């Protein structure tokens, strides 16, 4: 960018915008323009109705060329709206865009004050401050860094699967990392999905297959990310590949080893069936697990515990795929963008002991019931209780661990719908009377209200009332041996006691228990509720405050499958904008270390929230990575030697601005006296 020759003098162009009536009705823009014209260095001082319009911008460009201006100040709205617009205009006029300074006299003045004369004075003060500041601006170049086209998706549920496929189909190389032995996430555990009652596995498994077979996707299951270094476009990620004790290239998933395992029957709680059935130490999570590989659990396998197993599994495997000596290995890959799709966990129902989960055997969580009604579940789809009986009456309790300040205050969004679905499925699978106890029926999605309508016709008893307790205390003979629900039927207005055989708790969705650890790994934030924090709740739901890292799905907040898939696609698209632009431009408001003044004291290293500062031990000087630096200014303030400065926020600039506001500038008196610029 060619620099305009300065001739040793500062020539400032000042523009004040009317913004229609927004500014002009409160601030006397004419008076401000006339006042600013008297300030030192101001060559041009204009007011205009809409500075952001084409004629407004052209005015700036023309003035720069014709009047040889080398500084521009615009007093209008918030920089968040039009700083970029005016910087571009400045650049088009032939001036380095960082010679531009913006003054906010709309959000900061006209929109918050009613006293016109006070508002005008304030506008003059702010304008004066900007004029004095802009003297010290220097020309800066934004840094451009190349973007690595490869991407990583962390978490292999439906969100991760969809995001990975989208990126892969766009021709990018994707690493999909999942910590369970198979992808599929929670969706693989569901029986049918609302509102269409599609079989979850039937719609999911084709996508899982696509992932497995896609040439652009490197699928790493039973793996976890352990370290992330770098910055947007240039991340270096370390992934730990946990040992399955199976040689992946040899295993074909014939499952003979499981059949022939020294354990005749399963003994350990099966995680996929939420503990409702048992598995052997060697297992495959579910029949359609992707990849189709077996896993050996070292915590329960006899060979690992005592070293003295007959190893019938090894005998059974005719491909010699079992390797007890396998070790964990670490892979380091370079990617440009990362999408986090780590999902959710269900609320632990033991935190609400008044519902009896864990105390009474026939109290289930909704996830357990999904497995119970599933044809490939522990009971083959037959609803048989833990004590062997078949239920004649079932209670489904909504809002367990949701909308409750004593546990989780948010609404988990999916529970009303899945409770309706479970009511339907339980009606189908049993002859039982089904009750749904709810506070509000939340059915916001497409065709969801229709689904509720359908359920209303299915003879399900809907009672509006939050259940206070599930107890086995019988008040009458008819309640003996049952679980009694005590609830106020708020519609009718009376307290009721309803004995049932089975209770289903619609547990809410909450962040994963290691969400804090994961977010620290990737240098993003969590909201107060513990979900990953999006950049803007309305306009940037899949971006984070860390460039190059995106979030999608339930890890960002509770949501159903359609929204999850939509977000996954959105995150992939955001990643693609970065990747396809090839390089990114970083705002140059970064800090830098004046090496001569640095004493190597290390104060700045630990306080940087973005881990952007490192120390060159040989030279004993600190060094700031411009790509990671976000320009927060913490190190600038903290450096005891004053060795760190920040572009666009240097000391002289800030002090001048303060002088301008307080009118204590060089020989500054109201009306402006000429002073010699630096």
């Amino acid at each position: 960018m060619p620099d305009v020759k300065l001739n040793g003098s500062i020539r400032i162009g000042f523009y004040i915008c009317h913004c229609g009536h927004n500014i002009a009705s409160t601030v006397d823009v004419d008076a401000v323009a006339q006042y600013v014209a008297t300030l030192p260095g101001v060559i041009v001082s204009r007011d205009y109705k809409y500075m952001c319009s084409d004629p407004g911008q052209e005015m700036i460009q023309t003035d720069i060329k014709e009047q040889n201006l080398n500084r521009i100040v615009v007093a209008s709205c918030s920089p968040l709206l039009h700083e970029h617009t005016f910087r571009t205009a400045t650049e088009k006029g032939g001036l380095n865009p960082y010679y531009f300074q913006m003054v906010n006299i709309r959000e900061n003045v006209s929109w918050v004050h009613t006293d016109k004369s006070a508002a005008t004075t304030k506008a003059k003060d702010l304008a004066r401050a900007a004029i004095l500041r802009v003297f010290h601006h220097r020309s800066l170049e934004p840094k451009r860094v190349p973007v690595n086209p490869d991407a990583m998706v962390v978490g292999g549920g439906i969100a991760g699967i969809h995001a990975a496929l989208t990126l892969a189909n766009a021709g990018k190389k994707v690493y999909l990392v999942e910590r369970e032995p198979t992808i599929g996430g929670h969706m693989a555990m569901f029986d049918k999905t609302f509102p269409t009652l599609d079989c979850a596995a039937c719609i999911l498994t084709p996508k899982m297959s696509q992932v497995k077979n896609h040439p652009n996707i490197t699928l790493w299951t039973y793996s976890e990310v352990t370290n992330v270094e770098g910055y947007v476009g240039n991340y270096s990620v370390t992934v730990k590949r946990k040992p399955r004790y199976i040689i992946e290239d040899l295993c074909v998933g014939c499952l003979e080893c499981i059949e022939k395992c020294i354990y005749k029957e399963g003994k350990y709680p099966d995680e996929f069936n939420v503990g409702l059935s048992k598995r052997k130490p060697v297992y495959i999570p579910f029949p359609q697990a992707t990849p189709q590989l077996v896993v050996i659990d070292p915590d329960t396998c006899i060979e690992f515990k005592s070293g003295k197993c007959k190893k019938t599994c090894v005998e059974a495997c005719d491909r010699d795929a079992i390797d007890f000596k396998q070790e964990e290995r670490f892979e380091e890959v370079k990617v440009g963008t990362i999408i986090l799709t780590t999902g959710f966990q269900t609320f632990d129902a033991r935190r609400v002991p008044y519902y009896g989960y864990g105390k009474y055997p026939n109290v289930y969580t909704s996830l357990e019931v999904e497995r119970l009604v599933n044809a490939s579940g522990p009971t083959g789809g037959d609803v048989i209780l833990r004590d062997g009986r078949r239920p004649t009456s079932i209670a489904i309790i909504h809002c367990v661990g949701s909308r409750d300040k004593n546990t989780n205050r948010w609404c988990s969004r999916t529970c009303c719908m899945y409770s309706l679905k479970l009511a339907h499925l339980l009606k189908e699978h049993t002859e039982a009377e089904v009750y749904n106890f709810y506070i509000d029926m939340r059915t916001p999605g497409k065709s969801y209200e229709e689904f509720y309508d359908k359920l209303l016709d299915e003879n399900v008893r809907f009672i509006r009332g939050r259940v206070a307790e599930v107890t086995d205390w019988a008040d009458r003979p008819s309640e003996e041996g049952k679980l009694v629900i005590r609830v106020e039927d708020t519609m009718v207005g009376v307290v009721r006691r309803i004995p049932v055989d089975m209770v289903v708790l619609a547990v809410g969705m909450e962040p994963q228990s290691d969400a804090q650890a994961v977010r620290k790994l990737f240098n993003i934030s969590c909201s107060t509720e513990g979900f990953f924090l999006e950049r803007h709740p309305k306009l940037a739901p899949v971006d984070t405050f860390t460039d190059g890292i995106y979030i999608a799905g339930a890890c960002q907040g509770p949501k159903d499958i359609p929204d999850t898939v939509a977000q996954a696609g959105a995150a992939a698209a955001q990643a693609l904008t970065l990747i396809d632009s090839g390089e990114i431009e970083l705002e140059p408001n970064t800090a830098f270390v004046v090496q001569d003044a640095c004493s190597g004291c290390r104060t700045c290293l630990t306080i940087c929230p973005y881990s952007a500062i490192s120390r060159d031990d040989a030279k004993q000087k600190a060094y700031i990575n411009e790509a990671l630096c976000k320009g927060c200014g913490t190190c600038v303030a903290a450096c005891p030697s004053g060795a760190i400065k920040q572009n666009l926020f240097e000391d002289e600039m800030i002090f001048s601005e303060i002088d301008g506001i307080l009118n204590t500038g060089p020989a500054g008196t109201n009306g402006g006296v000429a002073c010699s610029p630096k």
Partner: protein
Amino acid sequence: MTTPMVEQVKSSTNHRTTKKAIVRRIKYEEELDHSFGEEIASFAYGEKLFSCIQCGTCSATCPLSHYMDYTPRKVIAMTRAGFKEEILNSLTIWLCASCYSCLVQCPQQIHITDVMYALKREAIASGYYPRRLPIPVLAKAFFNQVRKNGRNTESWLLVNLYLRTNPFKMFKEAVLGMKLLFHGRMSLMPDRIKRRNELTTILNAVKAREGAVRS
């Protein structure tokens, strides 16, 4: 009005023979007291009164809700809406045993029990309770005894209560009373503190200040 007898509504009640009157029931805005809700909410811990989502957990967990004419949830709704007459005249506020179950379970963490106390106080202050309803009578008798002696003596408290509500009850309870006396669990001597004046001064100071505030 005598002590309300707890009527067990039997399911076998023949509704066909019971005479039912047709009553016109509609509430006009000018009949409500819209500042009532805010007044009650201004007492200690009443602030969250307006956060109620009407879930009904309080009524469901309240062990006395079976006997209440308005369940606790309804009381909150009616207080917010300004149904002052109905609430202060209700039996609910007196039946509350302050067991705090509702408060502990409420998902919005509303201090329902404290709201009930505030309503009790309002009812007594405005004279809205039935004269022979034992619970407020007991509260007043208790209050007077403590004011006078600094402590209360259960035997005399109960005598006071029965005399004011239903004297025949004294005879019914005489057997139990004798049994307690025999087991040394009833004292007939009124229990008093030494520095009664001190206590009276303190309580009068509070009363004077509140009186000044109210007037």
